[in-house]
């Protein structure tokens, strides 16, 4: 009798379990496809960061080289004040080199939460290069449209410790598998940042946003624009770009 009851319960719940697993799998497949678009073995990006200050705006041009999720090297090209400043990220360590003082400073811990050049981006934001599928569990919350584009609204919750943002809500373009908007939350549920992705272009076989607006919700202003001028994926980058010696060269 007990055995029959267990079989009956399993047979009732099975379609629901299967359906929930299928949904989880679908959500996971979506973020894997996003990762395929947004991440590559290597990236070389020439970009402009437009910081809207209270009195005037500043445009900071830089060239960045990244390899996998651990290594990133950025050299600032203009304006004159920033020219020659270099940043190197190896794993979870970050060094900044200033040509004016010929000093290399290593940042760690809570100092990484400081704003980069008065922008709405923190050093932590710039260092976060891990694939979403590796660090978040995902579920589809709703299907909707965003700026006349059909989207999935997905909720991602951290599955590893120590992430800058515990929860993310993403509006995913159903056709291009690229996020169009992202809300980033603290563990307390406070909305910390909003990111808007526009000018989605097809580069090689992937879709990629060429303009991203970061808005720190705890600050006034209209946020910081990050405009990609040139990007290449999976190019060959010499290993010396990810060594501390590059900073003083």
């Amino acid at each position, binding site marked *: 009798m007990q055995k029959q009851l267990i079989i009956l319960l399993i047979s009732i719940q099975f379609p629901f379990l299967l359906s929930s697993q299928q949904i989880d799998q679908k959500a996971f497949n979506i973020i894997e496809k996003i990762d395929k678009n947004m991440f590559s073995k290597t990236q070389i990006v020439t970009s402009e960061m437009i*910081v809207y*200050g*209270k*009195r*005037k705006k*500043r445009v900071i041009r830089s060239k960045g080289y990244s390899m996998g999720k651990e290594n990133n090297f950025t050299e600032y090209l203009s*304006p004159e*004040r*920033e020219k020659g*400043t270099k940043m190197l990220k190896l794993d979870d360590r970050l060094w*900044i080199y*200033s040509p*004016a*003082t*010929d*000093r*290399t*400073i*290593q*940042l760690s811990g809570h*100092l990484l939460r*400081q*704003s*980069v*050049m*008065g*922008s709405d981006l923190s050093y932590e934001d710039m260092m976060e290069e891990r694939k979403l599928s590796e660090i978040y569990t995902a579920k589809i919350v709703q299907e909707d449209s965003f700026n006349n584009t059909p989207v999935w609204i997905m909720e991602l919750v951290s599955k590893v410790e120590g992430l800058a943002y515990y929860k993310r809500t993403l509006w995913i373009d159903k056709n291009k598998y690229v996020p169009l908007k992202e809300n980033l939350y603290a563990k307390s549920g406070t909305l910390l940042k909003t990111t808007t992705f526009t000018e989605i272009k097809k580069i090689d076989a992937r879709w990629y946003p060429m303009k991203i607006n970061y808005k720190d919700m705890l600050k006034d202003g209209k946020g910081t624009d990050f405009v990609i001028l040139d990007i290449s994926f999976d190019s060959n980058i010499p290993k010396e770009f990810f060594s501390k010696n590059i900073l003083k060269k």
Partner: protein
Amino acid sequence: MIKFIIKGILRDKSKSLIPIAVISVGVMVTVMMSGFLNGIFSDVINQNAKLDTGHVKIMTKPYSENKEQLPNDLALLEINELIDSLNYNYPDLIWTPRIKFGGIMDVPDALGNTKSQGPGMGLAMSLQNKESGELQRLQLNKSLKKGRLPERSGEVILSDDYATKLNISTGEKITFFGTTMEGSMVFQSFEMTGTVKFGSPLMDKGTFIIDIIDAQNMLDMENGTGELLGYFKDERYDDQKALVVSENFNAKFQESEDEYAPVMVTLKDQNGLRESLDMGDAFSGIFIFIFILAMSLVLWNTGLIGGLRRYNEFGIRLALGESKNNVFKLLLIEASVIGSIGSIIGTILGLIFCYYLQEVGIDISDDTANSTIIMPSVMRAYITPNLFFIGFIPGLFSMLFGTALAGRGIYKRETARLFKELEV
């Protein structure tokens, strides 16, 4: 008459010892508490004025609304012209710019890599311009713990605790890493020339001081400042005068359409000082009132006991023909003399304790280590001229009040029954 009363008091100690003891203790506590509260309030005002608020402070309107964030992108610009106009319009005040900014101080090792680092708060002031009076105002010479004060461009002093935390010695290089007024990244190396103890836990935690010209160049704030502080030339804060100056200044910019128009605030209108100091004043008033009342009740009781003990004496005096008014008058004069003796003893004892608290103080640095407001780390009393007479008010008043209440019984005595009562 007074001589006669004093003789009476000295010869009959039973009628004066307890009241004098009660008054002495009461007056001593009143003098001590007044001196101590005076000291705390004066220190809070002086420290805030010197380190942060000035007697009046000018900022741009948006800066003043967000000043906790040190928003130097909203700083005052063209300050030389503004200072000229202020000197002309308000000749009683000296104006001096201050820039507060946050960033990271990084100490290099022999290879130029990071040896130690920590976030800090920078304070830029006119160190090299002797006319500004900043060195005397902040008494940095007295606060110096190690080394010397900055004398040239490119030199910095650190709070002693901060230097210890960063493990840096005088003469070593230290690099500031932060952002300019507009948000550009800035690296600037300084030579650490000495350390100071501000005496305020908030400042001692992580403050460094550089010259204002260095800060203006470093932060791209040429001819600009975050805050422009005004000090009365006699270095004494007068709230009424400060209010008149600030109202007059603000009226000129009330209609201004400039988003960055300057606004002036008084010392007491910053850091919640007006509420705190007014509340402190009210509390000390209430404290003295309650003390007078409590002492009066004790002395009333003492007077009643004394009155009962001297029942026969008053009876005989009335029977001999002394008027009730005269007996009551002499009783009050006697109370005044006792009150004066008690007040003198209490004032002397109170002043001795005040002197001790003035010189030694009470160290509260452990309790205020995480304080977010500027307050002294050692609470001290201050001996001021008013302490020499403030104790006489409760001392005399309570004795007179207590005796007057107890002495009412004299008027209830009926002369016709006196001899029967006295069994003469």
